[in-house]
């Protein structure tokens, strides 16, 4: 365990740090290699089976991707069968956008979600959404910024589509009833308020205060509930996909947690919008993610033969709360730095430009902590986020712009206007995922993936605000595509024949058949599916709880 500078000494150094020097220059590649968690030697392993055999993957994710099925032939044989045009799995932003678009174009939709509609990382998004609406900006510039931040590893076609969709996505959201902050420009014309995200050449992030995701999600949720062509099933996680004799996807099996039974849904198209995997707590990191972020969609897709990409690349958001311990990992929005707050180590020194891409800032913070310049308080280590000097420079900012932050910290009796926060990187986003095309189609016919579960748009580091845009750009396109094929694609006999083949592959690779997935809930959720055991116990328990020193 690293040690840092004890809080009292660090705080005195902080108080003396009135005059801010510029941080020293860093060599980006060596900083990432030395300190970014993706590069830790013991953090990765090679997959032994499936389309990505031989590829590197985090050690916490590999057992899930190579897990055995939860359902048996008997579970499937006795399950009730229900038919629909489109089955959307996941009730966050991408799932709702897909469902609404499919319904709008005439398809019947079942939206099945593990918790309840809207429970997702979307609702927790604070910063905002990137879209090139400014006249000093263009989709081309948005493209170039994103490509660079993603280390030139994005799928260029997908990224070009994303940025070009931006303005239309904003209009679509407004038409649904989503509000964004507006202000008057120099000429007195009404215009969107824009903030600059790390790595952006111009301010491009549109937001609603500092709870943009909540504003979007409550509107989307209502729109879905009110849409008669969409049936919402809460508490119904998908546990397996259905395939026909050619291995094409023709539906899914969900587990109804209320009724404690399996239900088979036949569909012409399945759209997975299951989100990411922060609750796997890679490298023992705390996470900013929602309770449901357990990589389920990736696990299900991989098992039926969908190729993944950049699965060894994750985003650690630079500023998760490090203190108090019970809030460890909770996000402190980038907006705080965008508005001018600086990062200071335990010596009161700035050590990085605060608006670099997230992977670099996270690595810089981890470097400060690893080299003993962090701030240590009650066993937690981090660096200062200088909110008091931001409050002094911009009076009232915590009452108008940074409401979520003020609310969160008020609960733990920290007044951010007078006390600097202590922050540490938190596992935030899965940069890669299931490989898709512009409509969200995967390698497996009938199976689409949208949102965080998909990969390709972000390369090896996602730009702030591009995730919310991705949800609606790709969610809408997938919904339209699914409605178009609804009348055309004939669903043949649905089964789970792929499971037998998968289990044989696992066995010949010497992999265990008693580890079952997807995980569905974090290990500390202690959830059991009737009659089966999920993999949860073998997945590392989150540091947030380990830190409680029970």
């Amino acid at each position, binding site marked *: 365990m690293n040690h840092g500078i004890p809080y009292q000494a660090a705080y005195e150094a902080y108080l003396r740090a009135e005059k801010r020097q510029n941080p020293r220059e860093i060599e980006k590649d060596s900083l990432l290699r030395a300190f970014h968690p993706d590069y830790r030697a013991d953090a990765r392993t090679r997959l032994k089976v499936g389309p990505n055999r031989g590829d590197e993957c985090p050690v916490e994710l590999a057992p899930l991707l190579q897990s055995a099925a939860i359902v048996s032939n008997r579970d499937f044989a006795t399950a009730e069968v229900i038919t629909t045009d489109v089955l959307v799995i996941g009730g966050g932003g991408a799932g709702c956008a897909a469902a609404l678009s499919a319904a709008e174009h005439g398809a019947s939709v079942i939206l099945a979600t593990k918790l309840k509609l809207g429970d997702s990382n979307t609702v927790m998004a604070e910063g905002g959404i990137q879209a090139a609406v400014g006249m000093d900006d263009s989709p081309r510039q948005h493209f170039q910024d994103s490509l660079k931040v993603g280390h030139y590893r994005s799928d260029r076609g997908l990224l070009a589509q994303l940025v070009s969709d931006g303005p239309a996505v904003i209009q679509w959201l407004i038409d649904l009833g989503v509000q964004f902050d507006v202000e008057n420009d120099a000429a007195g014309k009404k215009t969107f308020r824009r903030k600059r995200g790390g790595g952006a050449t111009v301010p491009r992030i549109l937001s609603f205060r500092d709870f943009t995701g909540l504003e979007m999600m409550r509107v989307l949720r209502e729109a879905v509930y009110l849409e008669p062509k969409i049936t919402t099933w809460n508490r119904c996680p998908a546990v397996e996909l259905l395939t026909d004799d050619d291995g094409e996807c023709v539906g899914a099996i969900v587990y109804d947690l209320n009724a404690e039974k399996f239900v088979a849904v036949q569909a012409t198209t399945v759209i997975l919008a299951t989100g990411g995997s922060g609750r796997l707590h890679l490298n023992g990191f705390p996470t900013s993610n929602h309770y449901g972020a357990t990589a389920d969609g990736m696990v299900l897709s991989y098992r039926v033969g969908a190729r993944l990409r950049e699965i060894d690349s994750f985003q650690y958001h630079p500023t998760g709360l490090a203190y108090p311990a019970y809030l460890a990992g909770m996000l402190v929005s980038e907006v705080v730095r965008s508005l001018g707050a600086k990062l200071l180590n335990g010596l009161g020194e700035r050590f990085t430009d605060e608006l670099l891409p997230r992977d670099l800032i996270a690595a810089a913070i981890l470097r400060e902590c690893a080299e003993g310049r962090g701030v240590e308080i009650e066993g937690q280590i981090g660096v200062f986020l200088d909110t008091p000097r931001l409050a002094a420079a911009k009076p009232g900012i915590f009452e108008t712009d940074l409401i979520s932050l003020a609310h*969160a910290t008020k609960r733990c009796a920290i007044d951010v206007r007078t006390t600097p926060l202590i922050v540490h990187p938190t596992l935030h986003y899965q940069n890669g995922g299931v490989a898709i095309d512009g409509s969200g189609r995967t390698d497996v016919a009938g199976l689409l993936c949208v949102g965080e579960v998909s990969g390709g748009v972000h390369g090896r580091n996602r730009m702030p605000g591009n995730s919310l845009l991705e949800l609606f750009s790709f969610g809408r396109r997938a919904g339209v595509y699914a409605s178009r094929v609804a009348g055309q694609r004939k669903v043949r006999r649905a089964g789970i024949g792929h499971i037998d083949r998968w289990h044989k592959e696992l066995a010949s690779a010497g992999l265990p058949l008693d580890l079952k997935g997807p995980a569905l809930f974090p290990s500390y959720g202690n959830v059991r599916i009737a009659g089966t055991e999920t993999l949860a116990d073998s997945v590392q328990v989150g540091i947030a709880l380990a830190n409680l020193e029970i």
Partner: protein
Amino acid sequence: MPELVHLTVGGKALVVPPAITIVQAIHTAGEDLSDNVGCMGQGVCGSCRCMVVRRDSGSVTFELACETLVEDGMQVNFVDYLEPALRRQYPVDTTDDEQRRVRLDQIFPEAKHCRHCGGCDDICPRDIEVEQLVNLAVEGKFSEASRLFDYCVMCNLCTLTCPENIAPNHVGLYARRAVAATQSSSTDLRLRLGELAISASDFDPFESDHNDGSSAGSA
């Protein structure tokens, strides 16, 4: 070793360390949790709303379990998330407050029956002036109603408690969605959409980059 805290959650006695939230207490005690949980501390999803009775307190408070710390002698009960029987679709396309008001009365005819009991105000875990919001909307003051509603997490507790079946949070969301239509006039967005309508894409994503410093290509 810090002194342990004793509390009950859903009638079950738990013994846990101090300085953790109710949700963390359930995890720590080894109880299963697959419902009434969501954003884990941010307080935005509204899923973990619960009734709390503290030791020596005769009253019930409504709080979010992900942001409330355990206390010795605390009794906690989660509240089922019931959907209101509300299936009235409505358009959000007008900027005229009078039209919005007429529409509100068609969608939520109960809203004008508010009996000012204050139950919604008392139950709101976000301290929103719910009753005021409903009455502003009924009067057609949608911008003001919308602003009051900024912090709502749609936990539905006000809907659960309203004796007139008003569904106040859904009224509030109606007000917000109605007001959103007004911002369509942002000139920047209209200009950009106009440009894109003429030329869908203004660049070639596959052209070479002057700054392609990365060693590896696309996966």
